[in-house]
Each structure stands twice: as C-alpha cells, then as structure tokens.
C-alpha cells in the first residue's frame, strides 16, 4: 500500500511539473496573441515605424532579423560542420590538441551573450573593419570600421557555432560504423567515405544544427547590440556595411527607450507575436525539409 502511494505521488508530481511548463507556455502565447493579434495588419507588417515608434509598422525589423539569421547561418553552418567533421572523423580523440578544441567549444557555449557583443565590437568592428578601412582609404574614412549587419551576423555566428558543432558532431557519430567500413572496404578513401556516405547520412543532424542555431540567433539581442543593430532606421539595409533593425532589439527599444512607452504597448505585443511566428516559421520549414530528406533517404 505504501509503495502504491509513493507511486501515485510520483505520477502526480511529474504531471504537475509538466502542467506547470505547458501552462507557462500557454499563458505566454495567450497573452501575446491576445495583446498583439488586433494590431497585426498588412500595413503593420510592411510599413516602417512612424511617429516615434508609436505608430507604423515593423517591416525593417522583420527583414533585418531574417537577413541577420541568414548571413549568420551562411557563416556558422559550414564552419561548424567542417569543425565537427574534423573532431568526429579525423582528430585523435585522446590528443591534447583535440581536448583543447573541445574545451574551447564548450567554453564558447558558456560565454555570456553580451561578452560576444563586446568581442564583436573589438574584433570585427574595430580590428577587422578598421583594418580594412585603413587598408583601403588610409584611415580617413570610416566605412567598414563601424557596426553593420555583416559584423553583427558574424558575431552571432560565433555565438551559435558551438550549437552547430555539437549537434553535427553527434549526428556524424550516429552514422553506423558498418556503413563507413563498407565504403572503406570497397577501396574508398577516407575523404570519399565522408563525402559520399557519412555526410549524406548526417544531413538531418546538420539541419538540426542549423535549426537550433537559427532559433538561438533569432532570439538573441546582446551580441548585436554594439556590432550592427540600429535604434531606428526607416529604410532596409542595402549592403553588408549597412546597419539594420531587429525585432528583439526593437522590442527592447520600444519598451525602455521610447518617449511614450504606454503608446507602444500594442505594437510591442504585435512585435513579440511576429518574432515568435518568424522563429516558428524558420523552425518549421527546417523541420519540413528534414522530414522530406529523411523520407527520400528511405
């Protein structure tokens, strides 16, 4: 009887914990949709902020967020994948060098986002960007040596790199040894085996890595704070050296920096809703792609 009671208590507490999480998410979604849904309109989605952000739309912030995430992925996914290939396929697991890389990756994952922002400012904006300017125009003009979407994306890529590396490496390890040996036994080189057998079987993992990176990148604000995001910009970035608006930062600006915070509340809800929907959409399309690829593989 006593055992039975303990069993029930256990079941009850797991159910209660689950309910807590689900209701927290449900409440958040409900609040955001309730507050924001009415504000969503074609004009809101395609217009620029107006009247000190108390009116108008968020189009530049949507496009800025999408561009940021895309450029970030273009940088982080290939570099992360190549690193993962090295770690999982080539590196000697017990060498000091490999342990050092692993330690670096883990440390990178634990560094606070704001530190990445400061690093981006120091390294990309001032050192790399400033260096390019000096090289081109002999430090007369600031062109690359100021915050822009490229430096922000690269800073964000650094932040998401560990996520990509870890998930790709896991998926590479999950490729059965049988398949690798089958390929090698046919006289394939290690490189051929990786390209033709290992990577095609790890596609889903690489995509998962990209999904996680995108999800993380779309939500973070701190890394882009000093490296490229703009307070207000009515036009879209037209080159990599332009600044940009971003949904998360726009939310922050409206809720803390606006001259009339009360007047922006509706727009804040709607912006949060769009940010959620965008992340959701990006994730969903990646999941869909993954599903398609997996169906094709079998």
């Amino acid at each position, binding site marked *: 009887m006593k055992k039975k009671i303990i069993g029930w208590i256990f079941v009850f507490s797991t159910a209660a914990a689950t309910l807590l999480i689900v209701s927290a998410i449900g409440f958040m979604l409900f609040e955001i949709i309730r507050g924001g849904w009415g504000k969503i309109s074609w004009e809101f989605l395609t217009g620029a902020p107006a009247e000190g952000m108390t009116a108008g739309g968020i189009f530049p912030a949507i496009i800025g967020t999408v561009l940021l995430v895309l450029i970030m992925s273009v940088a982080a996914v290939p570099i992360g994948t190549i690193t993962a290939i090295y770690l999982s396929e080539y590196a*000697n697991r017990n060498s000091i060098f490999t342990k050092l890389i692993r330690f670096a990756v883990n440390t990178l994952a634990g560094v606070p986002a704001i530190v990445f922002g400061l690093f981006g400012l120091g390294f990309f904006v001032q050192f790399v960007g400033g260096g390019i300017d000096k090289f081109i125009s002999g430090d007369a003009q600031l062109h690359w040596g100021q915050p822009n979407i490229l430096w922000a994306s690269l800073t964000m890529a650094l932040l998401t790199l560990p996520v990509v590396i870890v998930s790709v490496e896991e998926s590479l390890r999950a490729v059965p040894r049988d398949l690798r*040996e*089958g*390929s090698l036994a*046919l*006289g*394939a080189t290690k490189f051929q085996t990786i390209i*033709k057998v290992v990577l095609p079987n790890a596609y889903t993992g690489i995509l998962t890595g990209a999904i996680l990176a995108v999800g993380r990148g779309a939500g973070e604000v701190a890394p882009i704070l000093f490296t490229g995001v703009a307070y207000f910009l009515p036009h879209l970035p037209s080159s990599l050296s332009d600044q940009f608006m971003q949904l998360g930062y726009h939310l922050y600006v409206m809720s803390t920096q606006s001259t009339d915070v009360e007047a922006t509340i509706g727009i804040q809800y709607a912006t949060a809703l769009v940010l959620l929907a965008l992340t959701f959409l990006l994730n969903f399309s990646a999941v869909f792609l993954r599903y398609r690829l997996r169906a094709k593989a079998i």
Partner: protein
Amino acid sequence: MTTETKIVTKNLNLHYGEKHALKNISLDIPVNRVTALIGPSGCGKSTFLRSLNRMNDLIDNAKIDGSVLIDGTDIYHNGIDVVELRKKVGMIFQKSNPFPKSIYDNVAYGPRINGIHDKKILDEIVEQSLQRSALLDEVKDDLKKSGLALSGGQQQRLCIARALAVNPDVLLMDEPASALDPIATAKIEELIYELKENYTIVIVTHNMQQAARVSDYTAFFYIGSLIEYDETKKIFTTPKEKQTEDYITGRFG
C-alpha cells in the same frame, strides 16, 4: 598444398593494447579455393580476416607485426596503398550493410569512386555484378529501389554484388550468413560455391556444417593461435589435434 597460394601470412602477431589477439599466425591460403576460419568467439578469426585487407588499421590501438603476402607482395610494407589493396581484397560483413541508396547506386559505388562515370559502362558493371551475385533476376525491374527495401538475404547478396563490382581477386567474408534464415543461407552458400571459380574466398563462420559444406580448407583458431589447418575433409574426419576434435564435435566452444 597442391594448388598455388594466394595469401601467405608469416608470424603474424596483433595486439590490441595489452591484449595479444593473434599469436604467430602462419598460414597459406590457396588461390580460387574457399578457406574457412573456425573457432569459438573471441579466438581471433575475425581479427585475422580483417588483417588481410588492413581493416584493423581503423582501430586505434591495434599493433601488428609479421607479414601478410598477397601475390607475393607484403601488404604491410610501407609503400603499400591501402586503398588499392582494398580494391583487390573485397569484404563482406556479418551484418549486411547496403548504403541507404538505390540498388543501382549501391553496386555502382565502387566503380564510381574509381572514376568510372560512363553510364553505359556502369550499367554493364551493375548488371554483371548482380548477375554474379545471383540477385539480378530478383531485382532487375527495380534497380532504382532502395537497397534497404530488400530482404536480409537479398541485402547480403547486394553487398556481394557491390564488392564484385570493383573486380577484386579475394573475397573476405565475416560470417556472411549468420543473420539469415536457412533458405537465404543456402543461397549464399551456393553463391560461394560458384564464386570460388574466379575468386579466392576466406570465410569466417560459426557454423560447423557451413564450414564443412562450403570450404576446401579449414583453419581452427583458439585464443589467438592457429591450432590446426588442413583440407576441410581431414579437419572434420581425422583432426590431428585434440582441441580441434573437441571443438568440431561440440564438446566446447
């Protein structure tokens, strides 16, 4: 030996870290015959097989000394190209391992990595290899079908076709039928019988009857040592060693 030898191992020793897995194995494997390696689990027969195409190279702490000569060339010599070696010495694994690709692409894998991309030549190689592995009649209408959609026995024959497509001289088989039902097993055995006309086959098996049925020569391994090696019918009727006799009559192992 009455026939020509294909593979000669001389004082082959292999260590996995501290473990002495192969002890001084000297064995002559004849050309175009089936040589079976038998012995209880962990006796080193699979390790020995994998040292013939240097698959043991993939294991970090494996250390090998002694020599393995194939057609008179020491495959552990410094200048040897392992990739070339493995083209010449094909391998069939215990668990069939077709790539998650179509039947056609599975068989064409080897030729393609060797740089053959001409559709006509590939078609021919694929057909011929499937023919030789006795699979063609069952799959010729849907070569585009995934190799994983085949039955276990068909998958194993697909793997044999895949190995044949790179035109090896030697086929190493690591318990190729251990996961198959009796009918599929019989087909594989039949195939082995046909293949030995053109290939030198070395097969590891746990199944005594199988060794007796398919092989011309049998080597009995025990705890890393080669205990006895002779013609199969002698091993199974008049073994010289007591350990061999005990094992084949099922008294241990």
